[in-house]
């Protein structure tokens, strides 16, 4: 095969594009601009760390299932870790969102970073709701019978039946975590491709 032919292969073209858009030193940079030295930039990675614990504890819950997490002290503990990491996840995500909103971090071609963040937020809320109705206790019975009336009022109940435990559990442990993780991956890759958004231009005169 000639070099020209090799260059035309989709593997070569894809590799060139990826390396051009996201060279390794941009993917894992050694330093960041000075303005990144602020606590407000810590909340994206806090959200990501919390998401990691959510997935890890959820995976452990899946190993032995509801009988185990309702009846053993280790099960209660992992269940609590799952709940509280979700609390931290949402808490950090909201502070992150406010931070990015306040600096209009969608500037400079970063709109898709904002949009993937927003969609991740929505997917996470759905994951939270389906989690509440997947508990298999009186709490989830109560929540799902309330939620069904709300969803039926929209007509959505025909497809998304909150009383259907199998469907809710599948959404909670397969579809929505997958969406959250894939979207988060895209979100962070976009941040790396564009670099952290610079602060607003200084508008007032500063005397030297």
């Amino acid at each position, binding site marked *: 095969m000639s070099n020209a032919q090799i260059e035309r292969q989709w593997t070569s073209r894809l590799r060139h594009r990826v390396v051009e858009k996201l060279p390794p030193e941009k993917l894992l940079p050694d330093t960041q601009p*000075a303005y990144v*030295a*602020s*606590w*407000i930039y810590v909340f994206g990675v806090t959200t990501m760390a919390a998401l990691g614990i959510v997935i890890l504890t959820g995976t452990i819950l899946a190993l032995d299932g509801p009988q185990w997490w309702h009846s053993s*002290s280790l099960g*209660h503990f992992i269940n609590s870790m799952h709940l509280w990491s979700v609390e931290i996840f949402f*808490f950090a995500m*909201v*502070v992150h969102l406010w931070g990015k909103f306040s600096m209009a971090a969608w500037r400079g071609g970063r709109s898709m970073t904002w949009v993937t963040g927003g969609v991740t937020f929505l997917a996470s809320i759905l994951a939270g709701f389906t989690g509440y109705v997947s508990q298999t206790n009186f709490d989830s019975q109560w929540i799902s019978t309330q939620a069904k009336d709300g969803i039926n009022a929209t007509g959505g109940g025909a497809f998304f039946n909150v009383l259907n435990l199998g469907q809710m559990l599948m959404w909670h442990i397969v579809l929505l975590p997958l969406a959250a993780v894939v979207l988060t991956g895209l979100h962070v890759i976009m941040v790396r491709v564009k670099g952290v958004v610079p602060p607003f231009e200084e508008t007032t005169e500063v005397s030297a």
Partner: protein
Amino acid sequence: MAQGWGLGALFNLDHYGHYIQWHVIQISVANLVVIILMVATFIAALFAPFPGRRNRKGSK
């Protein structure tokens, strides 16, 4: 409710939730507390000094 040994909850949660109501607006105290904590965290994140950061405006 989990019983027996262990630290237990820091607060006694074994009662109905408390709610605040103002006309059509109703919110549980727990949710309100979380919102206040998020706002406080946001403000602290903007103003708390970040370790290792040199003050750029220091020699104005």
